[in-house]
C-alpha cells in the first residue's frame, strides 16, 4: 500500500515528509490540498487534521500529522531500508532530536516570518514591514552563527552522517535562499555553506525539486 501525503509538493512542511520518504525509498502519492483556496481550513480537511495544517499521511488505516512526527515514524519503521536517518547509538539519536528541536524552535519561525514578509505578502499585494525584516534577519544571523560553530566541529548537525536533523532544514532554507533572496545568510558562512551544498545535492532532494517544478 502506498502512503498518501496530503499537502502540496511546493509547501515546506509536506516537503519535509516527501524528502524523508524519498530518502527511505518509500512509495507515496500526493493528494493536493489547495492552501491558496483555504482548503486546509474547511470542515472536510479539519476531520483529517483538526488544527487545519498540512501535511497529513494516511498509510492504510494509520493516520498521522505533524511533519516532524511523520519523519520520525518512517525513519524508525524503515530503519533497515535506505540511509539510516536516526543515528547509530541512542546518544546520536538524542542529538538528532536535539537539532530537530533547535530547527523547530529557533530557526523555523524566523525563516517562516521572513518568507511571509519577503515573498508571500508582496505576492498578495501587501507591503512588508522593513523594520521587522531587519529584526528577523539579525536574529537568524545569530542562530546561524551557532550552526557555523557546530558545523566547524562535525560534518552534519547530529554527527558525521546525514540524519533527519539535517533533512528537516532543507525546505525552509531553500525558500530563504531562493524566493526570499537571503542566500548570503548561508553562503557567507564557510561551514554552513559546505553543509548546505552537501545536503541540497542529495539525489532525494533533487528528485523532490524536480517534482515541485
Amino acid at each position, binding site marked *: 500500500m502506498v502512503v498518501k501525503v496530503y499537502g502540496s509538493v511546493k509547501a515546506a512542511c509536506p516537503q519535509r515528509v516527501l524528502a524523508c520518504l524519498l530518502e527511505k525509498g518509500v512509495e507515496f502519492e500526493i493528494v493536493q490540498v489547495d492552501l491558496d483556496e483555504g482548503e486546509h481550513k474547511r470542515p472536510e480537511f479539519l476531520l483529517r487534521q*483538526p*488544527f487545519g495544517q498540512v501535511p497529513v499521511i494516511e498509510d492504510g488505516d*494509520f493516520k*498521522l*500529522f*505533524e511533519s*516532524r*512526527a*511523520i519523519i*520520525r*515514524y518512517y525513519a*524508525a*519503521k524503515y530503519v533497515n531500508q535506505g540511509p539510516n536517518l536516526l543515528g547509530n547509538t*541512542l*546518544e546520536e*539519536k*538524542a*542529538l538528532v*532530536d*536535539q537539532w*530537530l*528541536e*533547535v530547527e*523547530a*524552535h*529557533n530557526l523555523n519561525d524566523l525563516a517562516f516570518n521572513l518568507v511571509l514578509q519577503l515573498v508571500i505578502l508582496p505576492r498578495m499585494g501587501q507591503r512588508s514591514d522593513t523594520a521587522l525584516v531587519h529584526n528577523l534577519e539579525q536574529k537568524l544571523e545569530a*542562530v546561524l552563527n*551557532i550552526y557555523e*560553530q*557546530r558545523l566547524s566541529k562535525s560534518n552534519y548537525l547530529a554527527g558525521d552522517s546525514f540524519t533527519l536533523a539535517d533533512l528537516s532544514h532543507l525546505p525552509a532554507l531553500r525558500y530563504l535562499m531562493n524566493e526570499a533572496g537571503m542566500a548570503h545568510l548561508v553562503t557567507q558562512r564557510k561551514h554552513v555553506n559546505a553543509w548546505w551544498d552537501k545536503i541540497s545535492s542529495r539525489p532525494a532532494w533533487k528528485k523532490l525539486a524536480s517534482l515541485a517544478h
Partner: protein
Amino acid sequence: MVVKVYGPAYASPKRVIVCLIEKQIEFETAPVDLIKGEHRNPEYLKLQPFGALPVIQDGDFTLYESRAIIRYYAEKYRSQGTELLGKTIEERGLVEQWLEVEAHNYHPPIYEMTVQLLFASKLGLSVDEKLVKKSEEKLGKVLDVYEERLSKSNYLAGDFFSLADLSHLPFTQYLVGPMEKEYMIRDRKHVSAWWDDISNRPSWKKVLELY
C-alpha cells in the same frame, strides 16, 4: 554518576525532571537564575549555545532541548519505570504527533502568556494586554481541539499516559496556578478530567514539592 539538570526553578527543566522521576532515574540539579541573566554567562553558553533552559549533563554526554531530553531518557530506560512511548511503532508515532502539537500549537500561545503575565514585570517591562488577549484566544482554540480529542481517548496519544501528556504539565501548571486562568481548563469537561489525572500523578506532585 548522576544526571545533572540545569534550571529546575523554571518550566522547561521541569518537563525533564518529571520524566526522570517517572522513569526512576536519579538526578541532581544546578540553579540558573534567568532574572540575573545567568543563562547568558559564557560558562552556560558553552553547554547550551542558544542560552535556553534546560541542558543536562550525564557523564560525558551533554544534551539540550527538553523534548529531546525526555525522548532520550524514555527510550534509554525503556525497561524501567512508566512506559512513556506507547507499545508499538504506531503508538510511538501518535506520541510524537501530540508532542509536536504541544510544541507547535500549545506552547507558543501559553509561552507568550507566561512571559507577559509572570515575567514581564520582573524584567521591568510593561504587560502587553493585547498580546495576552490574542494568545489566550489562540490557546482556547487549541484547547477546543484537545477537548474533542480527549472525548475519544483518555490521553492524547491513546488510552495510555505518554510523553505527549507529560510535556504539557509545567506550563499548564503556570496557567491554572499563578496565571489564574484555571477556567480555561475547567470550562472543558474532558480537558479538565485529563488535567486532574495527569497533574495528580505522584511524579508531578513530587516536582511541585521539590521546586
